[in-house]
């Protein structure tokens, strides 16, 4: 997945790092700090004097918005703008001590849909910036279809969605030159922007869009930003990076983290291990655990074929029976395949089926273009060798279907290995329809 959300703190840090390049006409204090608890904040205040000298705003920094409506922005103790360091620290400790409910959509101020419940682990703390509503502006950019689109509005803050009709959209083809972009932005400044700010707004927007393009953001939003003459405050930011550009942005992005969304299950160690192996390999190794105690496990080669198998299992058995989704492709080595297979066999043999049935392992795949089937199957066979006892204890029926380079040998080897180890196996080649083994497995 190429587009990955980053924390508000990281988004601000990236802009701050390149501030003079994109916004030479403006100043940004970059007074922001990210902490996981109150004592970290107190400690941070030793170096960052402003934490003690100014009143503060604190909020979670965990990829979700609507923090104000969820009551998760601390900006007042007795009255707005009076939050001290001590208050912020104790508030963070309080909010991070137990699970919080967060709603992602609202109708007015009334939450709609279901809340997600999870621990708050990351908070961003910044100075409280007194400003008027007129100084709040909205700006964002992303890719829509083939074009980059810049969104600008004079109505910043929480009201931008209610006032979406006032947002100006300007689309640019990827090949647009800097001159073309600047000219078009200058012509498109929302008319509600205060007359005194119009020129500064345009200059800021041009720099913003240039930063969006050059720093390989997939999405970049500042809502609101506050223009006070030459001084800019970035009150709230949302950003996604195109992580495929990571290899050329190492210096520009710095040490950026891609956190799991709030309310999402933490990735299991097995999934993390596969992700790690994937990142180090020229081949592709993917694993998502959907329902670890379900009956049907898949080990399918190919990004397309794996989806077809998942579709078919959902159609024929229903998703309650589908334990995982994943794929390996691009010619993984024998040891990579062994590791991948062992990870799945390990997960699959942790418990017996709750209804006492045999579990099903689908080793599927289309007719490979260049992946050596015998070589990848060697890895799977080695995993069988190590897990045969556990597999027999749990009760597993294996169904194999594959074609491609060296498939005859691969199928023969895996059949022999399973027979030798006393495992139940059925083996099919390209003469059998790609997903027919799912039907066979379910009718047994």
């Amino acid at each position: 997945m190429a587009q990955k959300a980053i924390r508000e703190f990281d988004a601000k840090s990236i802009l701050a790092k390149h501030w003079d390049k994109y916004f030479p006409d403006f100043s940004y204090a970059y007074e922001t700090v990210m902490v996981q608890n109150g004592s970290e904040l107190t400690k941070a205040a030793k170096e960052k004097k402003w934490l003690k000298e100014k009143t503060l705003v604190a909020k979670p920094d965990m990829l979700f918005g609507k923090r104000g409506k969820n009551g998760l922005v601390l900006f007042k103790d007795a009255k707005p703008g009076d939050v001290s360091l001590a208050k912020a620290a104790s508030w963070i400790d309080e909010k991070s001590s137990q699970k919080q409910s967060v709603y992602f959509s609202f109708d007015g101020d009334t939450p709609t849909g279901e809340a997600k419940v999870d621990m708050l682990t990351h908070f961003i703390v910044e100075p409280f910036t007194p400003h008027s509503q007129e100084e709040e502006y909205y700006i964002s950019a992303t890719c829509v279809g083939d074009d980059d689109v810049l969104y600008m509005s004079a109505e910043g803050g929480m009201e931008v969605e209610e006032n979406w009709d006032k947002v100006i959209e300007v689309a640019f083809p990827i090949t647009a030159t800097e001159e073309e972009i600047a000219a078009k932005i200058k012509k498109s400044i929302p008319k509600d922007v205060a007359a005194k700010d119009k020129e500064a707004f345009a200059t800021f927007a041009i720099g913003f869009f240039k930063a969006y393009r050059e720093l390989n953001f997939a999405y970049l939003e500042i809502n609101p930003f506050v223009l006070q003459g030459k001084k800019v405050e970035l009150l709230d930011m949302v950003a996604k990076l195109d992580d495929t550009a990571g290899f050329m942005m190492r210096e520009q992005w710095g040490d950026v983290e891609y956190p799991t969304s709030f309310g999402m299950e933490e990735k299991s160690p097995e999934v993390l291990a596969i992700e790690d192996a994937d990142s180090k390999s020229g081949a592709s190794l993917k694993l998502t655990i959907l329902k670890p105690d379900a009956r049907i496990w898949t080990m399918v080669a190919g990004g397309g074929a794996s989806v077809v198998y998942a579709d078919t299992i959902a159609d024929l058995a229903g998703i309650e029976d589908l334990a995982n989704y994943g794929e390996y492709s691009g010619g993984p080595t024998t040891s990579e395949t062994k590791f991948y297979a062992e990870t799945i066999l390990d997960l699959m043999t942790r418990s017996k089926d709750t209804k006492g049935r045999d579990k099903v392992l689908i080793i599927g795949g289309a007719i490979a273009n260049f992946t050596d089937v015998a070589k990848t199957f060697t890895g799977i066979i080695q995993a069988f060798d190590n897990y045969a006892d556990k597999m027999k204890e749990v009760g597993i029926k294996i169904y194999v279907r594959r074609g491609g380079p060296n498939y005859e040998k691969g199928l023969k080897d895996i059949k022999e290995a399973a027979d030798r180890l006393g495992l139940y196996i059925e083996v099919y080649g390209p003469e059998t329809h790609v997903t027919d083994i799912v039907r066979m497995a379910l009718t047994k």
Partner: protein
Amino acid sequence: MAQLYTRDTQAIFWNNNASAIQRMLDYDYTIKRDKPSVAAIVAPTSSSKFEKFFYGPDEVMIPLYKSTAEAKAAQPQADVLLNFASFRTAYDVTMEALELGGFTSIMVTAEGIPERLARKMNATAKAKNVIVIGPATVGGIAPGAFKIANIGGTIENIVQSKLHRAGSCGLVTRSGGLFNELSNIIAINADGIAEGVAIGGDRFVGSVFIDNLLRMEANPEVKYMLLLGEVGGTEEYKVIEAVKNGQIKKPIIAWCIGTIAKYYDSGVQFGHAGASANGDMETAEAKNKAMKEAGIHVPASFNNLPEIISAVHHELHAEGIIKDIKEPATNVCPSVRKSKEFICTISDDRGDEATYAGFPISSLATPDTGKGIGDVISLLWFKKQYPKWATDFIETVIKTVADHGPAVSGAHNAKVTARAGKSVVESLVTGLLTIGPRFGGAIDGAAQYFKYADDNKLTPAEFLNHMKKEGIPIPGIGHRIKSLKNPDLRVEGLKKYAAKSFPATPLLDYALTVEQLTTSKKENLILNVDGTIGILMVDMWRALGYSEEEINEFISSGTLNSFFIVGRSIGFIGHVLDEKRLAMPMYRHPMSDILYDVQVAEKI
């Protein structure tokens, strides 16, 4: 362009991916193409000139180049670029090719090219009317004509899936693995495919479904199309639009995979990077439903695809739109092949009569053929038929350098060895072994340094300065006794011949200005015979149209010295035969001619 590829299509393959290229050549051999489908390989870090591949039971050499520009200049007819560079460089390689021009399609295999770069690359190509297949793809195929790299898998699978000859389905998929699978399904349930493209799994790919389907609509070989889409994106709607507005009239069978995605939230990434639904419209269900409503043949599930393919094919066949296909004759690639240890590109003794670069020896040997030793050298050394002025020059050189008396080191060696009772060949090689930088090597050196000075536009004074800094006397300048007033007549002869017969002598002209300067310092610093030969050889090659690079290679490989070796062998053999004839005894050098200065070795 209704057809993506023909039987004449040739590609430049960027990256020496030997197994993929071998698969292309196996395919070419199987379908009996006239020329290999890979004309050149770009391998920036390789020092080899070519790579050997099997072509059926035989082997062929595919030339290797350091850059796309070089490859394209040498193989201008190759209008397909197969870009197998990594995700780090694939963008640069594509952009360079678009800049060079002359490519009609570019296939990009890398997965995970930065999105902005992929978009820019695709937009630039589109503006230049170049079809981009990929990124993140195994490519495409025009069965019976041209196959990209690994698509279709092994040659056995290709024949089994009827990808060795054109059928009547146009196939477009996102996934490469399923492309293969569908080819097989179409071969089993219909008559195979006429053209197929896997557009690639990344979010931003160059040619999308509609681009390929519109081309197939215009391709008379394609009678119906099969589209395999995926959850995510809205590309299928463009196809629906084209069907609705009549741009596409041929029947389409279509299915979007990823119906499972609706059960999970967006946190689960199914399949490719492009496969993620933003909004209901992008789900597989919605797309399948919309396609069905537009009159596209949509099965109930992926498992029902075979039936629908069979039904559509059947109907078109019954209507006479699809005719029966006559299976073409094919070659069969041998399963066991052995790479050859040696390569010969100059002569061949396998036929009735041995040939020199394609010319039977009898067509060159006798006087009535009008050919001389210069012609034989031009064929065997350069694999070209040089014009008469050049072969005459070569012969002049050989005659000029044939001998220079008994005192020079090589002749002396040969004579001493002959007197030791050794054979002609042993005596000859002892003489030849002295040829090098000090003896005969001035020809090489003169060509090298004068060419360097001329290439870098050095004035004679700058050239002298340069050589002084290098600490080497200028090769080809200076004679023991001859001077401008008392010229070397061999040199005069060569210069006269060149002036009369060469189209131009720029390097000699330059050398003569250098000579003016050197002789003004010392009168015997003339351009000598070695220098003249070396310099005129460069002028000859320039006039024959060789590139500066090729000439530099002649110099560095020792070609110039070779003329001296051949010529002087005649003289050496003369001296050896002379010794034999005279039955001269073993030679021992007089002690009186040796300065003995032997000290007692110190202890250390």
